[in-house]
């Protein structure tokens, strides 16, 4: 049986260290070396203070669900319908799109606390995902 490839990230230029860190199950985000603002997606300068100095730092992995949707139509072979997607706010500030692993909340998902985990896709790609916090 053929394995549907995981859709690849676009584009890669500033995001390479992010995806490298994910591959190592050690998710890091870019952070301004001057004003400490977290950046996601990564970029060439700080949108807050214009600094070109940046570092990569591991995130806490704690987050909260902002919204969720269920695809009832299949757009991507790797994700047949019904497929669920969440938007979370990391405790560091940025919003991330991801998927919920494991148990699902009853009723509304909004406001649920979640923690970072890593999933290995059938084609071997590692994805950062989230599971309900204990």
């Amino acid at each position, binding site marked *: 049986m053929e394995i549907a490839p995981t859709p690849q990230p676009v584009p890669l230029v500033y995001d390479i260290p992010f995806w490298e860190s994910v591959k190592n199950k050690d998710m890091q985000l870019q952070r301004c070396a001057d004003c400490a603002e977290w950046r*996601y997606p990564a970029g060439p300068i700080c*949108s807050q203070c214009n600094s070109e100095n940046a570092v990569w730092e591991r995130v806490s992995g704690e987050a909260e669900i902002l*919204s969720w949707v269920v695809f*009832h*139509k299949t*757009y*991507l072979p790797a994700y047949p319908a019904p497929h669920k997607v969440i*938007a979370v706010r990391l405790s560091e500030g*940025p*919003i991330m799109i991801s998927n919920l692993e494991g148990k699902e909340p009853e009723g509304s998902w909004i406001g649920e606390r979640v923690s970072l985990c890593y999933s290995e896709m059938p084609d071997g790609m590692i994805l950062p995902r989230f599971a309900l916090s204990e």
Partner: protein
Amino acid sequence: MVRKRSAAAIIGIGQTDWVTDWKRVRAGEKPADSVGYAAQAFQQALKDSGIPKGDIDGLIVGPTTAYERMGEVLGLNVRWGGQADAVQSVLQAHMAIEAGYAKVIALVYGNDQRSAGTQYGGPAAMGGGSFLSYVYHSPWGMTSQGALYALTARRYQEERGMTEADMGEVAVAQRAWASMNEAAIQRKTITVDDYIESRYVCEPLHVFDYCLVNDGGVALIIADAEYAKKMSPNPVSILGTGRSDLNTGATSLEPRLTDYYLPAQQQAGKDSYEIAGVGPEDMDGFLVYDSFSVHVPLALEGYGYTEVGTVKQFLTEQGIGPGGKLPVNTHGGHLSESYMQGWNHQLEAVRQVRQQAGARQIENAKTIHYTSDVAGKCMSIIYGR
């Protein structure tokens, strides 16, 4: 505010027959390409304006068509030109006329998006990397324009205390308007129950929350106010415009999920109201770019038609359909008339002000408001006489 009032007016409108376009494309035909649809619409608009073609000295072409080819086909060697989406085309024409770069500008739009199978979702989504947030989240299976609006709608509905039935009021109202519009593709009225029972595409959005992708064309002739007064029996003036963008955090969807574009809408609205000297209470009708139904409640709050937090009451108690307090998308909008990427709304504004909207005519309409919030670029145009 530096801009003078009513510098430009629309003196001609044209379109292809969207219902026929729909039927032919669904039957597997390819009646025209984008240039062809635009050219047909241009012929109608030129005829409607009654002016000689030689007076046109500006050309703006919709983003889905090659500019050079369009000028070649129409035989227009202009002294000012450009390429832009619907609302930016109107604003740019207004600016060019005011700045003296052109006197009469043809705006033409043609799109073979349906027959060409244009993808607004999936890995080959239109725009791709140039509209990063369309594709940035594809590793997690988050793709398509509708899904972005579904994420917005879910959180917005919950914050505003709206049920799916409340949300359904938008699609129901627009279908009721479309039932009175012969140019609309979907004219069978629906109830809130029909809406709730309809299938989901990306939950919480139902199929009735999505625009009707179709082939077709639209054209407008916009002229300097003096010229318009002299040459046109029924010019429709651009009384005021405004624009405000929210780009910070755009890729991570911050403006969509937490601001709902409200600050930008409020600013764009304020600017246009000041220039035109009117407010939401003076509008006879409100037209909203509605690729998805959720645009409508966002705009009702963002442009001051109802207080922020009260849109549920506005939709269910005051109403936006026929007989409601505020006529909204009286042509049926993208949900029921046709997805002409905001261009069809400009035609509806002109028809309403000209009193040419037939059965759906808003009685004695003088002032019509158009707004769009596409990807956080909030724009406001006030049309009137």
